[in-house]
């Protein structure tokens, strides 16, 4: 496969959130603001790239019956690395994302790419796939977060656009996540069909 299409497929064509519908838990949970979405996206990207890399390296050494537990241990190790590092060097981001970081372990996106791609492809393709999918995921989460922050609190990346009192609280709450996600999926589907 051409590495460029492999890289770009994660953004629109096979966007993990809008098209593959993977990793819905953090998608709906953390995207109450753009910065939270971006932070979560980048943390997931790191885990995705590293786990894709390691798994594609050792894939032939792992008996297929225990591949899932092995993948999960590898993913969990990288998640903990991210968690500890963030706690040490980015305490303020950790404060707002703290609860969701350990949940990257059970993000279907990471395990899904490990199982569907990294365990069948070579090192370079897996690496490119991880970066592309991760950035696509970050892009989707940031977009979702920005839309919810804009409609709900009148801000984007904490920059005030209009007074908060006019915001629709619904968008910051869980139903807002579903509504915005639905519209964005419809939009992306329209773009993909066109």
């Amino acid at each position, binding site marked *: 496969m051409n590495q460029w299409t492999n890289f770009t497929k994660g953004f629109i064509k096979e966007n993990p959130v809008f098209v593959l519908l993977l990793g819905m838990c953090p998608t709906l949970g*953390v995207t*109450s*603001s753009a910065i*939270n979405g971006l932070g979560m996206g980048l943390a997931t990207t790191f885990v995705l790239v590293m786990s894709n890399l390691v798994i594609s390296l050792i894939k*032939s*050494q*792992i*008996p*297929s*019956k*225990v591949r899932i*537990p*092995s993948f999960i*241990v*590898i993913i*969990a*190790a990288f998640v*903990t*690395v991210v968690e*500890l*590092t963030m*706690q*040490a*060097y980015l*305490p303020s981001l950790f*404060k*707002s994302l*703290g*609860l969701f970081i350990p949940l990257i372990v059970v993000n279907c996106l990471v395990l899904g790419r490990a199982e569907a791609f990294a365990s069948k492809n070579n090192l370079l393709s897996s690496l490119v796939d991880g970066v592309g999918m991760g950035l696509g995921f970050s892009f989707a989460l940031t977009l979702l977060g920005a839309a919810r922050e804009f409609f*709900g*609190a009148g801000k984007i990346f904490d920059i005030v656009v209009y007074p908060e009192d006019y915001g629709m*609280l619904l968008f*910051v*709450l869980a139903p807002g996540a579903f509504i915005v996600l639905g519209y964005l999926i419809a939009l992306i589907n329209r773009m993909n069909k066109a």
Partner: protein
Amino acid sequence: MAQKESSFLNMVVTLTIVALVAATVLGFVHDLTKADIELAKKVAQEKAIKSVLPPFDSLGESWKTLPADGADSLEFFPAFDAEQKLVGVAVKTYTKNGFSGLITLMAGISADGNISGYEVLEHKETPGLGSKMDVWFKDESKPSQNIIGKNPVTSNLEVTKDGGEVDAITASTITSRAFLEAIKRAYNTYKEAADQQEATAKADSNKKGGQS
């Protein structure tokens, strides 16, 4: 390279190796970041103390007291000015009644007994709702929700729904209740400790007076 066969031995060996390597890596990372995590926590705590108290010169020795109505102790950080006079006390307080459990706050009590400030240290409240407490209760343009400068003795620090005089955060009454509970717990525990200190000081001086 051919795929390894799923024999019992292969599976056990693979899982053991994977787990061992992962554990080793985590051990290293933990050692590497341990000092920095402690440092980040300490810096955050000092910053919180500075922001909740009026300007001060030095911090005295901290102490811990068990509150009358809680299982964990509160930590007190007294602050003094250049003449060693008490400026205020920062109290690390908590409540377990938040919408999603534990909330840890740093509350400042100035020497005259008013709330001089607060800072939210840790919480798991709903983002965009309960999480607004970090600014909500110190908004100077809205006196009905501002608790800064109020004295818990003269002001009824409860949400209006419960008959108090503080406006709760919109759609987050539970968080607001828990927040105020933590603030009051800090104040009450501090007052009790201060009264006790005064009483013992008085008793001491009385004793001395009797002897002379």
